[in-house]
């Protein structure tokens, strides 16, 4: 890696930091945008005035807003995410406990959906217009249009209530009991994957068809290269490069999906934490969750950008300054 690539990456990192900074300001401001007193809301209206005051001091809420912000960020750098009013525990402990559960559902969903999506996309493009393409395209239209939470409920109704082959709800850590984890995770992972499969497969199909119509495919054909090799080598590599970006975008959707899926399947992860926190006005949890999610998506985008540079020879060499 030469200087230019390093400069490029550095620039991307600086922009990412700027974005995270903007989001952190927004997250802190959220609490103050709400009508009413956040401490009152958090402690309830029966709480005594001196308790509320004492709490205000403890949460740094007696200080001016910019000081609150600075203290929060300072704490974050020390690994201190503040205190949750609702759970009466350090936020860090709550997040540390719940994050692995969200990952245990979200990560398999991303991997499974990416693999299936690319396979389906290729099948469609290669058999364009034939029945297999039409059926998969129709299913993709259905998959894209079905709300995740309803899909979850429908899945529970069919597989848990009617057929009784899967448990209704809940979560077991894969490190505690892997078999139980798989049984409980099948439905949520499947429900989360379906819209992503539909989205990425559609994109793969479009890209692949686009690649097959390019001049270089005509060249390969004119030189007697077999149709299979053209599709699986010459067109596929061109088609998959933009798909990397799409999979990066899908990770954003996973977060939204996990809020819904954790709600439907009663999985105590970050998504359900956020819902509970918002419903109970625990903005000390919310500001951390928003920031965490933003850091996650920004890093994924950064990673995709850098990865893209390594896959696409054109970008890679341009950055080398060749």
């Amino acid at each position, binding site marked *: 890696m030469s200087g230019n690539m390093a400069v490029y990456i550095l620039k991307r990192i600086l922009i990412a930091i700027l974005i995270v900074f903007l989001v952190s300001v927004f997250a802190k401001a959220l609490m103050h945008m709400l009508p009413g007193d956040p401490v009152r809301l958090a402690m309830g209206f029966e709480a005594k005035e001196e308790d509320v005051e004492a709490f205000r001091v403890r949460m740094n809420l007696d200080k001016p807003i910019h000081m609150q912000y600075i203290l929060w960020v300072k704490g974050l750098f020390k690994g201190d995410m503040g205190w949750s009013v609702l759970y009466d525990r350090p936020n860090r402990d709550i997040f540390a406990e719940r994050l692995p559960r969200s990952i245990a559902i979200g990560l398999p969903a991303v991997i499974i959906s990416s693999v299936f999506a690319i396979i389906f996309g290729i099948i469609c493009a290669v058999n364009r*217009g034939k029945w297999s393409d039409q059926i998969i395209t129709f299913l993709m239209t259905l998959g894209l249009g079905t709300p995740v939470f309803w899909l979850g409920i429908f899945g529970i109704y069919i597989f848990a209530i009617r057929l009784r082959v899967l448990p209704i709800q809940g979560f077991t850590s894969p490190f505690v009991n892997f078999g139980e984890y798989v049984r409980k995770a099948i439905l949520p992972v499947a429900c989360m994957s379906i819209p992503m499969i539909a989205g990425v497969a559609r994109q793969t199909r479009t890209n692949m068809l686009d690649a097959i*119509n*390019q*001049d*270089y495919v*005509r*060249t*390969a*054909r*004119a*030189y*007697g*290269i*077999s*149709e299979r090799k053209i599709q699986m080598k*010459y067109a596929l*590599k*061109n088609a998959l*490069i933009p798909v990397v970006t799409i999979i990066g975008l899908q990770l954003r959707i996973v977060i939204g999906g996990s809020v819904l899926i954790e709600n439907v399947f009663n999985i105590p992860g970050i998504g359900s934490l956020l819902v509970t926190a918002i419903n109970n006005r625990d903005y000390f949890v919310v500001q951390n969750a928003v920031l965490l999610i933003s850091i996650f998506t920004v890093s994924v985008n950064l990673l995709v950008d850098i990865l893209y540079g390594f896959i*696409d*020879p*054109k970008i890679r*060499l341009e950055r080398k300054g*060749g």
Partner: protein
Amino acid sequence: MGERILEVRNLCTSFFTHEGEVKAVNDVSFHIDEQEIVAFVGESGCGKTVTQLSLLQIVPAPPGKITGGEVFFKGRDLLQHKPNSPEMRSVRGAGIAMIFQEPMTSLNPVFTVGHQLTDIIMLHRKVGHKEAWEMGIEALRSVEIPEPEVRMRNYPFELSGGMRQRVMIAMAVYCNPDIIIADEPTTALDVTTQAQVLELLVSLVKQHRKSLIIVTHNLGVVTRYVDRIYVMYAGRIIESGSTEEIMTKPRHPYTIGLLNSVPKIEKERSEKLIPIKGAPPWLIDMDPRCTFLPRCSYACEVCETKEFPKLRRLGESDHFIACHRDIAGSITGSTTGRLDSAGRHDLGGEAHG
């Protein structure tokens, strides 16, 4: 000239679109002998490229479809084979190789030049990867690309347009085909590179004793090299003959117009280029009469009433025309068409090349 190597009879290719059937190639017959160089001339969309793609059965399908005709290559009718059959694939590259118009997009952007060259050489020369790589370097050297070892590891976008077209020529020549088809090989290049690349192509073809079909819209560029010329208009061949006949005694009004619209260095500066008025016809539900009729300044009553004229031989020569009338035009004659006030050299719809 040697034996007849390719004989095409009554080739028809159509594109089936929402609006209807577009007859891109309409009853085209031609031939080429060993070591012969012929040119296909015409405006954009006249079917000259589709004709060549049809020979190799690589017309994009759907919507394209070869609807009839015979393509005899070394005595075998290629259209008897399915487009993706092994027989057809063995002809592509090794029998007939094609060089395309757009050097920018004809090479795959995500594989190195060497990768693409060796893939094809391995396929047609039946050699291992290492030998193919060596042959690839040799091929690049033969098309006068400097530092071929380095260029093999380059991606196409790292090369200039002229370089890329040289790579395409190397690819074509090193498949050792009998016929090379060059579809507007120099249109996308700078004027200075155009001549070099064309010169290189022709000299390689002569050196390896191949036949060459050059497809072009610019007659002036190729006349020094070609033996015979086919002029196409609206999917049909409307005039054919030896280069000398066509250049000095064109007989079809369209060919006359075509020659009048080509700039000539030896001509006086003051002489104006004469464009052909109007635009090429709509190819769906074609007018059964002569397709050039709306643009023809020689049209008479016969043309208005009779169907499209069949290609007919003029006397004993190899000169054929598809025209009801028998006019003898001169290249410089200003009798054809109207003078465009701007006097631009404009070849009908061929403004973009």
